[in-house]
């Protein structure tokens, strides 16, 4: 009896297939060679889901016309959306007030009004990559951009209370947002008088700083507030990002400061993008 059963395909073909796929994988992981194709297919998938969702929505709306609660549900939904929209606007107005104090005079209220209107886009969420959000390092979401507003990369995105991430390109009228907790995202923060670059921990609502152990870092305590430092040039300074959840001594003369983020991207359907901050 043969030691192993015969194969239907020569091993050479499998080796060739393995080499091709390994080369593609390495090219994609190291150089993002196929990120455009991947983004396009993902965006197409999201569009398909949106279209299907719309069809389901319309169907359920038609059936809801026979129900008395239809108007109440619509009003409720509209009010919720308005509320979220307002929250974003108020937040942006506060930020504008803080950042434009030095550049806007009292004699230019009109200019400020225009700036407020044009400087914020409130966009509805299109897709949240939940699968990767908990398990993996990549934390992203897509926002709908039905008006095809030209939105540049690296603009701050907020949820009405604080910042949750920044824009990172887009495909087919969808804006891709990379969240603060994404492992590739780095946010310069300050805690009291201590500054550090906080990298996303790859876990929900968590970022971390790994810093040398010295007198400044040793003074930090759990529950200290972490604020944006403004040094990265993307986010304005002095916005509460989160608070220290734990401080771990890794015995290499370094400490790991874990920060629990304040802004939970799962809590809202609308996010604001600041075009002027």
């Amino acid at each position, binding site marked *: 009896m043969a030691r*192993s059963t015969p194969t*239907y395909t020569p091993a050479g073909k499998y080796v060739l297939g393995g080499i091709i*796929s390994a080369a593609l*994988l390495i090219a994609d992981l190291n150089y993002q060679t*196929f990120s455009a194709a991947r983004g396009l297919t993902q965006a197409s998938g999201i569009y398909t889901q949106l279209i299907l969702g719309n069809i389901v929505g319309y169907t359920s709306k038609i059936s809801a016309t026979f129900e008395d609660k239809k108007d109440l549900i619509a009003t409720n939904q509209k009010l919720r959306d308005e509320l979220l929209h307002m929250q974003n606007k108020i937040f942006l107005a506060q930020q504008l007030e803080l950042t434009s104090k030095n550049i806007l005079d009292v004699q230019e209220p009109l200019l400020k009004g225009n700036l407020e209107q044009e400087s914020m886009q409130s966009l509805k969420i299109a897709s949240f990559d939940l699968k990767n959000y*908990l398990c993996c*390092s990549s934390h992203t979401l897509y926002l709908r951009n039905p008006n095809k507003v030209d939105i540049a990369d690296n603009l701050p995105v907020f949820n009405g209370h604080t910042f949750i991430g920044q824009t990172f390109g887009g495909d087919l009228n969808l804006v891709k947002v990379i969240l603060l907790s994404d492992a590739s995202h780095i946010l310069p923060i300050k805690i009291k008088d201590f500054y550090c670059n906080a990298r996303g921990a790859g876990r929900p609502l968590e970022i971390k700083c790994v810093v040398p152990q010295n007198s400044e870092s040793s003074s930090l305590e759990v529950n200290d507030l972490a604020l944006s430092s403004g040094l990265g040039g993307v986010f304005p300074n002095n916005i509460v990002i989160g608070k220290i959840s734990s401080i771990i001594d890794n015995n290499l003369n370094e400490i790991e400061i874990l920060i629990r983020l304040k802004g939970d991207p799962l809590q809202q359907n609308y996010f604001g993008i600041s075009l002027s901050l």
Partner: protein
Amino acid sequence: MNFNGHIIIFASIFLGFWLDTIISSFDIRTHILILESVPYLAESCIGLLIFCYWVYAIPEKLQSSSALLYGLLIDLCFGDAIGFHMLFFVAISYVIHVYALRFRLFSYFQLIIFFAGAAVFYLACKYLIFSPINYSYLLLIFSFCINALAWLPIYFGMRYIRRRLI
């Protein structure tokens, strides 16, 4: 095998991966709402198990090129790094081809062990490549149990489909 056969096989694999996504979304929502203090424990690999079933059931019809193509389509459809599923499908397809006839002698229990092991190997590679921070042996052990439980329903379900459609 004709084109329709490939469409049916790919559709079943696609549905498997889609189901994995739905299950993990549900898992994650539950995890976030209820079990936030507990580590993320299990991940199903229904899509991979369905692919394994097809190679196991009709090895003479699914060869390296099919594995490569299915892998590419899955990578594209689910936004994974291009090449990951291609590489894994080709590798698992080769192993199944080599032992194709020997598998016929295996009991259900032995098949469960082998395919759940393959699924765990896939998960381990996935976490090591894409998210080494979240790599956990506990997750692999629980996932082994989940995928072992999933194998028999997939086996009988796919066999039912194969006998009627392919």
